[in-house]
């Protein structure tokens, strides 16, 4: 298929439809409005349904209902809206339902701003909802990946019966890039024989539920969920290792910031400083194993994020297991890190550890 020039937000919506998503429930919030707008235009034409819910809380609960009915369903929002969806995400995880949730992050806390940010890392990877649950989180770095991983997210959600998050930011949502809608590789997926589609008098009623009043039963559910999350940690980790071979300093950056960091790496190379990058594509499960690839030449690590003080840096510390000193460079509030500033921070750090 030929490449088309598309805005990130529209590309996500188109990818979802391509992946078989026919139901979308959302509530407007900048900078992701093109997603519900696209869905409202396209879904009615192909036998699907779009509902502009009265709130994010209602939207995610509509997703819960539709996912329970066995269809492919998606919602999208941006930071404060995703915060409201956390209740539903916990219920969806507890009821083991598949769905895809897109967060085009903006700055916070609170109402914050409308510009790009990566300050929902904790919320995405730790869960803002209650209970022992995990959501797989994809962090695409360009519009093509946004398309590819949105499509993949539907299969992964169905396979594990778990919500999958696509974590972008205002920048990737608003940027235009050429994309190709490739046929996704076929995955063997289980039947949705648990869905509430009406018994037709032919089977016992199906129940979608996250309530377990019996403590032992709830622990059993948590054990079952943990096994699922362990399987994800074994099979679903994705990352990119860039110019790691003889790096003196290794950056860790994801999404749009990873691209800026690559520019910083080029600037450092001009000065004869070797820098590399580990780019987590899945934020949860975090690519701990990528850290085994860090060469002996490396003297320091540096987490680069659009966050004040850093959030992913906590996972970097876990993955590093105390081996190398860890630095941080970040901007927040919608401010975007500049390659030169990242390079300067790296030089300063290297100076300190030499």
């Amino acid at each position, binding site marked *: 298929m030929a490449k088309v020039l598309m805005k990130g937000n529209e590309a996500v919506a188109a990818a979802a439809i391509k992946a078989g998503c026919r139901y979308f429930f959302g509530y407007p919030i900048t900078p992701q409005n093109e997603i519900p707008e696209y869905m409202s235009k396209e879904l009615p034409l192909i036998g699907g349904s779009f509902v502009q819910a009265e709130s994010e809380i209602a939207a995610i*609960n509509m*997703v*819960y*209902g*539709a996912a329970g009915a066995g269809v492919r369903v998606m919602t999208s929002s941006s930071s404060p809206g995703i915060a409201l969806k956390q209740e539903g995400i916990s219920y969806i995880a507890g009821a083991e339902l598949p769905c895809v949730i897109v967060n085009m992050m903006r700055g916070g806390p609170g109402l914050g701003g409308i510009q790009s940010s990566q300050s929902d890392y904790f919320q995405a990877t730790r869960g803002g909802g209650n209970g022992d649950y995990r959501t797989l989180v994809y962090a695409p770095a360009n519009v093509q990946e946004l398309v590819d991983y949105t499509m993949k997210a539907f299969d992964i959600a169905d396979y594990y019966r778990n919500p999958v998050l696509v974590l972008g930011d205002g920048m990737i949502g608003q940027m235009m890039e050429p994309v190709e809608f490739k046929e996704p590789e076929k995955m063997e997926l289980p039947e949705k024989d648990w869905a509430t*589609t*009406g018994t037709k008098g032919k089977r016992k*009623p*199906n*129940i979608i539920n996250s309530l377990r009043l019996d403590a032992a039963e709830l622990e059993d559910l948590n054990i079952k969920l943990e096994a699922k999350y362990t399987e994800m940690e074994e099979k679903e980790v994705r990352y990119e290792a860039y110019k790691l071979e003889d790096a003196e300093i290794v950056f860790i950056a994801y999404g749009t910031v990873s691209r800026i960091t690559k520019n910083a790496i080029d600037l450092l190379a001009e000065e004869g400083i070797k820098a590399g990058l580990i780019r987590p594509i899945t934020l949860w499960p975090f690519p701990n194993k990528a850290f085994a690839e860090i060469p002996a030449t490396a003297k320091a690590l540096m987490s680069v994020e659009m966050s004040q003080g850093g959030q992913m840096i906590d996972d970097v510390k876990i993955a590093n297991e105390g081996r190398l000193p860890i630095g941080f460079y970040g901007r927040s509030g919608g401010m975007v890190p500049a390659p030169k500033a990242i390079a300067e921070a790296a030089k300063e750090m290297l100076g300190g550890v030499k």
Partner: protein
Amino acid sequence: MAVVFKKTQGLTEKEFHYCPGCTHGIIHRITAEVLEELGVLGDTIGVAPVGCSVLAYDYFNCDMSEAAHGRAPAVATGIKRSLPDKVVFTYQGDGDLASIGTAEIVHAAHRGEKITTIFVNNAIYGMTGGQMAPTTLVGQKATTAPYGRDEALCGQPLKVSEMLATIHGAAFVERVAVDTPANVKKAKKAIKKAFECQIEGKGFAIVEVLSTCPTNWGMTPVDGIKWLQENMMPYYPLGNMRNPWEVE
């Protein structure tokens, strides 16, 4: 021997957990009978609330989904939009529907969502131990209104049916009670109409059922029925407020 009375197919074998004298059981039963009589059990998906009827998913003999507190109308919307040919209903208490889930019920009605809601109004939070509900009567004591509901502090009890009846998308709105055999029959009739309203695609339908909570009212079941008749009925008058077969 002729069979004059038997258990409805609309309910499973599971025993109800409700307190003695609680009318949740009667409301379950008549709702189940209606689903059986309409022949739609195999095509029905029910949504249970959070509240004393949280386990309704174990009792109704059809596919069921358990919703978060107050969110049943949104969950039902998701189901109905995905499966427009199925019959979808929510079963909700007054804390669930009139407090935490007010936005969801108002907007499901507003969209004219083709679902049916059974709204059980017992003027109190039953499950959590008798706290004040938006429907608690002025002067009525609750664990969080130990001096009785004070209108100056908490407002007048919310008349949900009257409020929803002002919404265009609410096609069928009726308030019933299950205090006497005659009223139980009327309640069943209203519930049947509320499902027919959905099946005929006319829009959102709700039946508010005045119900008792002898446990948290601190009364015997018989006194509870009397209290309902003497206190709830005057404030929450029974009757139909919207009927799609009568209004054009």
